[in-house]
């Protein structure tokens, strides 16, 4: 099947098998390996990206489902020389270690920040229940998300 969608701001038209998963299309065909696959039961959240601004687990979505949609992956969130505020927050708060869960954490957190105007520590922890990290013990991830959300609201660092 041929599908067309907007990927990180650019139109894409591509031939896919009906059973192809979105994460596989991105990684194997479109060369975007920032979206990671850490499990086979949709538990770990390493593959989270945005479809029309909603965070979704791309290991659970058929590629054909994004026909006509806007897809944003971690590669489209910010650039190495112009990081997104959430990426800056993860960097400044040591919110990543091995980096494998990071793309999914970032993409989940950006949607979280858009949804929660005044988030608490507990809000972040509850929201990230679907993103596993084995390195950080989550403490610095939670701090990163709170800071990144504040930065997205335009608040300066204190």
């Amino acid at each position, binding site marked *: 099947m041929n599908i067309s969608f907007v990927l990180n701001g650019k139109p894409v038209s591509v031939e896919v098998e009906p059973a192809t998963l979105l994460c596989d299309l991105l990684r194997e065909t479109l060369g975007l390996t920032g979206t990671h696959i850490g499990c086979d039961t949709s538990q770990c959240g390493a593959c989270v990206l945005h479809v029309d601004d909603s965070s979704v687990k791309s290991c659970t979505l058929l590629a054909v489902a994004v026909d006509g949609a806007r897809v944003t992956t971690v590669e489209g969130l910010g650039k190495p020389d112009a990081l997104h505020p959430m990426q800056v927050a993860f960097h400044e708060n040591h919110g990543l270690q091995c980096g494998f869960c990071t793309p999914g954490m970032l993409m989940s957190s950006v949607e979280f920040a858009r949804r929660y105007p005044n988030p608490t520590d507990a809000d972040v922890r509850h929201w990230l229940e679907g993103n*596993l990290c084995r390195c950080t013990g989550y403490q610095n991830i939670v701090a990163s998300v709170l800071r990144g959300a504040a930065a997205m609201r335009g608040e300066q660092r204190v």
Partner: protein
Amino acid sequence: MSNVIGIGARPLRKEDRRFLTGRGNYVADIKRPDMAVGVFVRSPHAHAIIKSIDAAPALAMPGVLAVVTGEDLKAAGVGGLPCGWGITGKDGLPMKEPPHPALAQGKVRHVGDPVAFVVAETREQAQSAAEAVKIDYEVLPAVVGVLDAIKRDAPLLFEDVPSNLCCDWALGDRAATDAAFRKAAHVARISLVNNRLIGNPMEPRAAIAEYNPATGQYTLWSTSQFPHVVRMLMGAFVLNIPQHKLRVVAPDVGGGFGVKQFHYAEEAVITWAAAKVGRPIKWVCERSEGFVSDAQGRDHVTEAELALDESGKFLALRVNTIANIGGYISTFGPNIPTNLYGPLLAGVYTTPAIYCEVKVVFTNTVPVDAYRGAGRPEATFVLERLVDIAASEMGIDRAEIRRRNMIPKEAYPYQTPVMVQYDSGDPKGCLEKALETSDWAGFAKRKSASAAKGKLRGIGLCTYIEACGLAPSRIAGRLGARGGLYESATVRVHPTGHVTVLIGTHNHGQGHETTYAQIVGEKLGVPFENIDVVFGDTDKVQFGMGTYGSRSLVVGGAALSKASDKVVLKGKKIAAHLLESSEQDIEFAAGKFKVAGTDRKKTLADIALAAYVPHDYPLEVLEPGLEEQAYYDPVNFTYPGGAHVAEVEIDPETCIVSLVNYTAVDDVGTVINPMIVEGQLHGGIVQGIGQALFENCIYDDLSGQLLSGSFMDYCMPRADNLPRMTVATHSTPCAHTPMGVKGCGEVGTIGSPAAVANAVVDALAHLGVNHVDMPATANRLWRIIKSSSLLQAAE
């Protein structure tokens, strides 16, 4: 502008940018031209004879390039997977070391045991063909628990290993221990299970292999913590590939925790198959496959006793452990429950006599090997639970009984009765700081507040020590290590003064690129942004033993420090020539070589340029270039330690345990980057909390099927299971490492299980509970609370 960042500063990590922007380079991200895909066929049975394998139906399927079996490997002379550490039993005989074929030969010994490898054009084709490989099994009775495995009528995994006993090992002075027990005023006893764990780094294992018949060169990309060791073990022992014809690359690796520090069957099979098929092959482990093929951790059954005098002084400790090492000997399997366990049983106490016996046992389960902490959390758990039981039985405060028995700061270096000599430490300092930071004294008030809400609150303490920084090669050799345990580093100063560090450790989350740059900054005065660290490629880095056992900074960092010193030494000779002075008069500080007492100086960049453009240079006595290499072999282990305090609240209705407070005060020696150390402590502590409250690897007793085989069945700690932790350091510098560092990767995982378990038991103490096995799940607590209330009702 110069931005020199040295030891003790907290620069943000150099490695972050690629991970934050999806530009990491993990094995699964790599593609090679004309690459085929491999899939393993794994045993569905825990124990069975392979009567026949028929690959023909699979080979006839579209896109299939090859099916490799154990018999193929045997016919080709491929060796078994070697064990890197042999142990000797108390009878003086070596451990039983049955062969560990890369693909099963004749028999399978655990669910997930690899039986065949299918290579095809696409993943889908390989998966379909894997299902078409016809294997005729004769299923045998399986044994999964250690107590069953040593029974007289137990099924035997290996015909020549009676009672499934790999080794019956002992440490310590039995007679002195027995004598001390006879004098004891009180004996505290415990019988416990240390639950089996699955490490589960978030990146599943993966490998790509390629062979160039024109050069005879093999390349293996692998998710490994130690590529040089894989090259050595696989090249020299399994595939007979000369070392100079084998390159092993471990690029970005998504977490290790020990799980990726073994030479795995898949690495050897894919490398052999790539040459046979004549194409690069990629294999990416699925998570469900990792659950039955990544080496697992812990799994002890232990009986232990602590003898005390009337005042609560520890007189002796006796420990009897049966340790499960699974269906085969993994790379370091036998070493973990023995050499990394027994010597830790002194803990931070002056116990004069200790005797420990460990039976290392085969079962029809996935091989057990090192997982973060590896042996040391198990030892700490036994000791710290016993200390709490003794305190409770003798009516002594839990902190006080520890104080009475702690090694005083002045007593270091301290020789324990179980082999090791601690060089430095201040356990009492850590304890007092932890008690204060956690507001131990205010607990009663918090307990009342919880009680008013109908909740049971408990607080627990763990004071512990670790032996890490693996390892002094000579001592390790005496203990059975079959390799050296030094580390190597090269400091390459470029003609511009920029620096590349090439080091044999592997960075898979620990922040080495940042920490090592700080060491070079401190030593050579080179700006932070002018230093890069190269690791994980045997063609780039001279040699190395890799990253495990909290060794990278301790051993690798020391090698780096030594190599930097050599750069300064050579630089001084060059500076003396350029400044027309004597070498003795040259001083080096902050990146500048100066003639003492003058303002004549040269920068490191000036010296480097002169070394690479040697027009004005003492060529008669000095080689050009500015690149120095050092190997460092430590003289002792390092001994980080600390005190952890956990506080839990239990809802007696649901029996759910909530961890509400956690405080850790750790002595990791000199801290290079506090931000990174705190991150390591957070992660380590949560893995230990995982063991204490959530994680449990369970096999069906009869069939040997893994019941906890996915993230839906194996409970990983999640963000909403945890409180905000308080971590702090209380450092005494290591007496023998160049920078005083001790290592911080595993401490969290060592201190936390006992702290949490002690808190859970404390919360239930009023019910007469004196032990709760891990994990303290709602189900387990419900049974305990129910049975104790039934008992109380009956009384």
